[in-house]
């Protein structure tokens, strides 16, 4: 794909943004928009040296970058950090390159550091080149095409049903068993009625001076789990009913937390 075909707005946006030429006044309003981080800027700057990437002058590159960062409008703090870290590192590298070599333990020499930076730039450059080559290959669905009307393999399903005589007889017998049950008895369940709960709650709520946990008003354990649940449910419903009638206020400070209730104080 070339620019000629697609214009500036390349479909794949792989064209590196050009750095404004050095002799242009606009150089002063460079900003980092369009660059993908410090390495991207460094590569673009290195290219302006118009020499083989192996022979770039690191000192010159460092200078260009420091100027770029000083002049660029970096708005996002996160981005700025990346650039400032790189600038600091390059300034350090520059000083190391300029000063007589000292031996630092566990550290690379200035030349090695410079060589590594060059290597990184070359590697990124090389990856950019192969990216372009890769994307300019004939792509399936863009340049070359597979069969537009593929003929699918037709799968014919022959269903066999899995049912034994036993299963069928069982089904019939189950059906007969079910329909033969004529009487249905529903046992009376133990419940604490809403009326009972209302009566209890409105009686007790007046005795409490302040916010009280609703469940403090539970009657004594009935010893019957089902009954206990009914009591709780009815008491809760009763509290809602009292709140609705304006006789009580309810507060819950957190989800699943205790419910606090108090009698509405009416300034009569």
């Amino acid at each position, binding site marked *: 794909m070339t620019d000629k075909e697609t214009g500036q707005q390349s479909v794949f946006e792989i064209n590196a943004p050009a750095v404004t030429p050095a002799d242009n006044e606009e150089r002063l309003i460079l900003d980092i928009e369009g660059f993908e981080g410090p390495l991207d800027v460094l590569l673009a700057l290195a290219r302006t040296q118009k020499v083989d990437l192996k022979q770039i002058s690191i000192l010159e590159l460092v200078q260009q970058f420091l100027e770029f960062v000083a002049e660029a409008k970096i708005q996002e703090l996160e981005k700025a950090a990346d650039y400032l870290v790189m600038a600091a590192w390059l300034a350090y590298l520059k000083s190391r390159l300029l000063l007589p070599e000292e031996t630092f333990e566990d550290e690379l020499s200035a030349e090695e550091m410079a060589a590594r930076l060059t290597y990184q730039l070359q590697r990124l450059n090389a990856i950019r080149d192969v990216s372009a080559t890769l994307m300019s290959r004939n792509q399936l669905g863009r340049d070359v095409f597979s069969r537009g009307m593929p003929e699918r393999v037709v799968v014919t399903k022959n269903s066999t049903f899995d049912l034994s005589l036993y299963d069928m007889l069982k*089904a019939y017998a189950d059906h007969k*068993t079910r329909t033969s049950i004529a009487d249905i008895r529903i046992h009376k369940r133990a419940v604490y009625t809403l009326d009972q709960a209302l009566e209890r709650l409105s009686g007790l709520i007046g005795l409490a001076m302040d916010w009280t946990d609703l469940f403090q008003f539970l009657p004594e354990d009935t010893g019957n789990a089902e009954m206990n649940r009914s009591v709780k449910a009815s008491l809760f419903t009763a509290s809602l009913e009292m709140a609705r009638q304006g006789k009580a206020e309810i507060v819950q400070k957190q989800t699943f937390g205790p419910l606090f209730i108090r009698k509405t104080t009416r300034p009569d």
Partner: protein
Amino acid sequence: MEIIEQIRIVEALLFASDKPLSSIALADCLPESVKIDQLLEDLQDQYKNRGVNLVEVAGKWMFQTAPDLAFLLRTEVEEERRLSRAAVETLAIISYHQPVTRAEVEEVRGVSLSKGILDVLMEAQWVRPMGRRRTPGRPMTYGTSDHFLVHFGLDSIKDLPGLGELKAAGFLDNVNTSRLNLLDDPKPIEEQPELPGSATVKKQGHPPITE
């Protein structure tokens, strides 16, 4: 442009298209002077004896697998399917109560019969229509087929165990069979075979157990 190049283009266009193309649509991609019909004939000729042929369908052109190789694109799969509980119960009721109408099955089961259930039972070739009942609405009745007998290893529908036998076999625990009656549904019994193929259908089947 040479003929051979034009043929290549037509070939590629037809290959990549997701629908058959008319000769007019093809001609649009070629220089005006091109004789598209001649090209298509030539191309068709070139593919005549190949594994893929160029065919004209409804005035449009497409590539298609040669008819004698179509078997390559077909595979058969045996699939075992399970019947739903409702389907098994319906089958059982039909077999014990046949001939029975849809409404009767629903009444016995106490729920309405979803359309798919009878379809599945007929697809399995266990249930067949047995003619219409001579009552208002003339509802279709259903019964079991020979295939049903073969599948369940029965000589005739009369070999299905009765309620007493079911109870003896332990199928009907806790049920007082005297309160149940297989044949308790009073039912007008007259059948009128009236499907065009009903003569054959009758032969296939077996005598209903209700008198």
